[in-house]
Structures are given as structure tokens and as C-alpha cells.
């Protein structure tokens, strides 16, 4: 499934993504395969998403979340 399909409060493990379509900064913050991710909040109009990845709290837009494949825990 895709990271954008998680529901609030759900956890998942990052599987893979195309490096060209997500920002390098996200990788540097710890968005790497095998790391755990938890969806904390979705902003009122359905975007952005607010995650904890690699102990870092970070918000990204739905388009970016769509680029990342995850496996639900």
C-alpha cells in the first residue's frame, strides 16, 4: 500500500520509493526503507499529512506520500 493510504494512528514500515520523486530532505530526515512510520494527523482539508518517521515529526503533502510504498504493521 501507499503511505497516503494509512489512516490516522496507523503504523507501517517503509518499503520503497523512487528517489527522483521525493525530496532529498525527507530522506535525510530518516525516510528510509525498513524505518517505521506512524500517521499522527491529517490536516482538515485532507492534506498535508503529519507523520513520525525515525523519531522525527514531519509534515509532507499528499503527492509526496503517494510516492512511498509501505507495509502496514
Amino acid at each position, binding site marked *: 500500500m501507499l503511505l497516503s493510504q494509512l489512516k490516522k494512528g496507523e503504523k507501517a514500515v517503509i518499503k520503497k520509493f523512487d*528517489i527522483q520523486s521525493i525530496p532529498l*530532505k525527507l530522506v*535525510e*530526515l530518516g525516510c528510509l526503507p525498513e524505518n517505521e512510520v506512524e500517521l499522527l494527523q491529517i*490536516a482538515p482539508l485532507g*492534506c*498535508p499529512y503529519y507523520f513520525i518517521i525515525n523519531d522525527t515529526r514531519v*509534515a509532507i503533502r499528499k503527492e509526496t506520500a503517494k510516492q512511498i510504498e509501505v507495509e502496514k504493521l
Partner: protein
Amino acid sequence: MSNPIYIALAGNPNTGKTSLFNTLTGLHQKTGNYPGITVDKKQGSFSLENGQKVSVIDLPGTYSLNPTSVDESVATKHLLEKKPDLVVVVAEAENLKRNLLLFTQIKDLGLPTLLVINMEDQMQKKGISIDVESLEKQLETKIILTSTRKNKGISELKNAISQYENLSRKTLYSEDVSSYKKWLSDTYRVGFQEIQDKEQQSKTKKEQHQETVKRYQFIGKVLKGNYAIDKSKATDFDSKLDRILTHKIFGYLIFFGLLLLMFQAIFTWSAPFMDFIDESFAGISEYVTGLLPEGKLNNLINEGVIPGIGGVVIFVPQIAILFLFIAFLEETGYMSRVVFLMDKIMRRFGLSGKSVVPLISGNACAIPAIMATRNIEDWKERLITILVTPFTVCSARLPVYTILIALIIPEKIVFGFINAQALALLGMYLLGIVFALVSSVILSKIIKMKSKSYFVVEMPSYKMPLFRNIFYTVVEKTKSFVFNAGKIILAVSIILWFLASHGGKTFDSAEEIISVKFENTEISEEELKTEIASFQIENSYIGIMGKTIEPVIKPLGYDWKIGIAIITSFAAREVFVGTLATIYSVEDPEDESTIKSRMEAATFADSGEKVFTLATGVSLLMFYAVALQCVATVAIVRRETNSWKWTIIQLVGMAILAYLFAFFGYTLFK
């Protein structure tokens, strides 16, 4: 005495790096600019126990040496080129893994490097344990645990700084220093679009990605057994607070409540301070007039320089209060939540959630607001934010609005309790926001630019704000506003004074011409003087300029005197009021009444009709609501966009719109 040790502070954003800088240097700091760009360069100095001087630079916060914004590129460039004696990397206990990414990169530059792990006081509460000794060995460095909040670990840090020469220069991940440095400076140029080749760009990104992955693997190995977070011990305060502050209803209510409080503060709290400044400058002016002999110098100082400086200083209370609020919201970590809440809404207008901060700041001054757009990753969103920010009602518009509204709106109570003039002013604020948002929508449709919607916002953990940090921010920002705006206004007032007191041949022989003209009429000496003065201003350089543009501005309901004020207020909007005051007072220096009553009495030379009618007032309000009358903004836009094209499009576009709106306003109310 030996040379000072030169150290650089580096680290991720939100680690307390600047807080540590403030603790070390106190008020021995100053903010300058890096050459060519407007990134704040914070430098300071302090002494060690043995008397050794240390000079320190606080580099912009960055997650890695692979920069994606101008701010971050400064850190990389500085470390590559300036070669500090020692780099102090500031990390945060809670996010040590992520912080170490930057540490391993800096270590590979072969510079002596110290690791500071800050927020030691939070470790127990968050269930964090660190084996410092073992980590020191594996990371080839010295580790200092500090808490800037509780002032802990500072003397240990100073002690470690004094022994910087004993630190290892070994690399951690890269084979050798020179190949890493070469790779870094090559990729730096690609990342910054100096090399436009698509293929090379994607190749570089791949390399940077691989490098990041491998470094994280290395860090994972190093931390194993030496660093642990026991989540059962952690109290998750952040998530609880987030549930309220980013709530779909309460989140917005709280945000708009804070905005209301901020504007309330800007207008009511600052009033007594502004009155005090106003009176003080009047007093100074009076004192200096008595001190100097009468003549040109006296005029220059009293009619040009002192009111010019006073016109800048009077905004200090409002600007300081605005920055106080913004610094408070940033320092607590709340601002990122606002960005999160507003992103989708702002995108409907072609902006980003990160545009909220510039648009709020724009209500004090467009210059810091435009500088605050730097962290918007998407270039198109950033450009649009820069282009529309000057529509928001900055404090320089206030004196213009205040006097025009006082002239055309009667002071009465409407709807039972609202002051009609205050309502009109509020209307001007709303109009500014409407102009900004509507033009964003239009611009986002017009500007064809491939935009990757990159948006990554770290949501830092909530912190109690440190008074010291907020204080330093407010002092620094206010200081730089006063000096930057002050320089321009001072220059303009001197030029204005020169242009108003000099002219061509007609100007020089004004006395003769007027004396001849009134030779056979009965006229008192006083009246003759007034006639000469008003003839002089009409024929001074500035008068000639005003007369030249009169045909163009006639359809807006303005005469050549207002024309002069429009020309001079191109430097800064508030100059409008001062210029009219100067023109009317030069004509009739004996008239002691206020600028307002002088404007009320002003008539057109040809028809004898009143100048400031409702129609002219509305026309001028529209003109100043739209036109980009601010040299400092033009300069900052040029620097931030690095393009004359966009600067000129903004300037000319706003001028044309201003003319049209002023024309409609005048025609509608005539």
C-alpha cells in the same frame, strides 16, 4: 595575546544551537549579511577562563551538507571555504540519530569537531540513555552534554574548546578528506542549478541518496548499545498538545485568536510609545533650531533630517511587538503547526502553508517578510509569495491611511459602538489581504513554471520559550530595520530638501519677478513673502517634476503638489505626509495649525475648489493600497529573486494597477 580561536556552530534546526550561541556570547554578537545574499550572518565572541578570546559564527541550521535552500548552502560553503579552527556540532538528545548525519559529514571534512548533545534535562523525561564514553570512541570526538535552558555543561564546553588542538581529525565514513570535499563541491554546484543538465542532476541526487543511506547504516551501527529510548518512560506531551492545536476546529480558532491578539497588541500597546517618540522628536527639533544659526543647514536638519529619522523610529514599537509575537510562536514550535494547518488553504491561492508567516509579517514591514520566504522550497510558490506580500498593509502605510481617513470619513459612531474611522482602517487591512490573495490566484495561473510540490516541514517538539532568545531576536530584527530603512529615508529627505530649495533661473530670480509683478498693487511685506515662497516651490526642481507629471495624475484628482508627494514617497510611503507638510509649511511658515487642517484648506490653483474631497481621498487610498512605493522593498525583491525581470514586473504591475484603482475610485465618488 594570541589570535582568537575561530569556531563555527553547526547543527540541525530546532536543536537549541542559537540558544547555545546566545548563552556563550551574550550581547557580544552582531548580525550581518553574507556577501551577495540576504542570509543573516550571526557572529559573536567570548573569552575562555584562561583569557583566550574565541570568535564564533552561528551557521544556519541544516539537516545535511547537501543543501536544498539558500540558507543551508551557506553552512556548506562556509565549512568548505573558511576552514574554522573548530566546528561545534550541536545535536539534540531526542533525535540523536538524525543529528549525527550532519555530524559524520562535517567530521569527514577533516576539521577538529566537537559534539554537543543539548537538552540533557529532557533525557530522563523522555526515557533516553546515552553511553557517552563509548560513543566518543566510535565517533572519534569529545562529547559534551549541555542544557542551555538550565545553563548546564557550559563551562565543560568552554574547557573542551580550549583544548581543541587535541581533537582527532580522522574521517568517519569517507575514505579521505580531499575526495569527499571534491564530491561535495561538485554536487553543490549541481544542486544549485549552476549546472542545468537534467541527467547530471538526477545522477547527483542518486549519489546523495546513496550517501545518506550508507551514513545512516554507519550511524545505526555506532548507536547500537550506546543509545536507547525507553518509550514506556516517555510522557508524550507533544501528541496531546498537537491533538488540540492542529484540531480541525479548535486549531483554527486558536490560530485566529492569536492573530487577533497580535493585531490588537500592535495597535493599542504601541500607541503610548509612539506618542512618546513623536513628542521627543518634536522636542529635539525645537532644541536644535535654537542651537544652530538660521540658514540652509538649520533648514536641512530641521525640515529634512530630524523628521526623516523620526519617521523611521516611530515604527519601532509596532515592529518590535510584531517580532515579539513571531519569535514567541517560532520558539515554542507552534509556527510549524500553523504551516501544517494552512497549507491546503493557501495552495488554493497558489501559495504554500509557509507563505503564512511572510503574509503576517508583511503587516509590519515587507522587508523581513520577503526575507522570511526563504524556507519555501517550491520556487513558484516562493516567487508568488514575494510578489504579493507588498499588498499587505505595512506600518509605513498607516500614517498615510490615518490622515486620509481623518480627512474624508467623519468621526462618528456607526452601528451603535464602532468608530467609523477605525472601521475604514480595518477595511483597508482586509482590502490588502484580498488584493494579495486575488493576485496570487491570477499569478499562479499566468506563471508557467514546472513546479515540484516539495514540502517538508519538521514539527519540532513544543518548548517553553526562553525569554533570552526572544529578546535577542527582537533586538536584532528591530535594529536592522531601523538602520536599513533609516539610511534610505535619511538620503531621501536630504535629496528632497535639496530639490525643494534649488531650481533653475526662474527660481533664483523669484524675488525680483514677484516684486515686479506686485509693484503697483498694495500688498503687505508678509503677503509678498508668501507669494515669493510659493512661487519658489513651484519653480524648484521638485516643483518642476510635480508639474511635469500633473497631466498624468489629473484624472486621479491630484494637483502638482500631490504629484510631488507621490514622487518623493516612492522612496517610502510615509514620506507622503511629510512632503505635503513641508510644501504647505514652506508656502506659509507662520501657519501653526496641523497638517490635517492645512490639507483640509488646500484648494486647486485654477478652479479654487477643495483638493481633498471624498473622491480624491478614496483615489489616494486606493493608490497607496496598491502601488509599490518603497525603494527598500524593490531592493530586497531584486536580491531575493536574483532577477530584474520579476522585480520590474512587480513594480510596474503594481503601479499600473494602482493607477487604475485610483482612477475608478475617483470617478466613482466624484
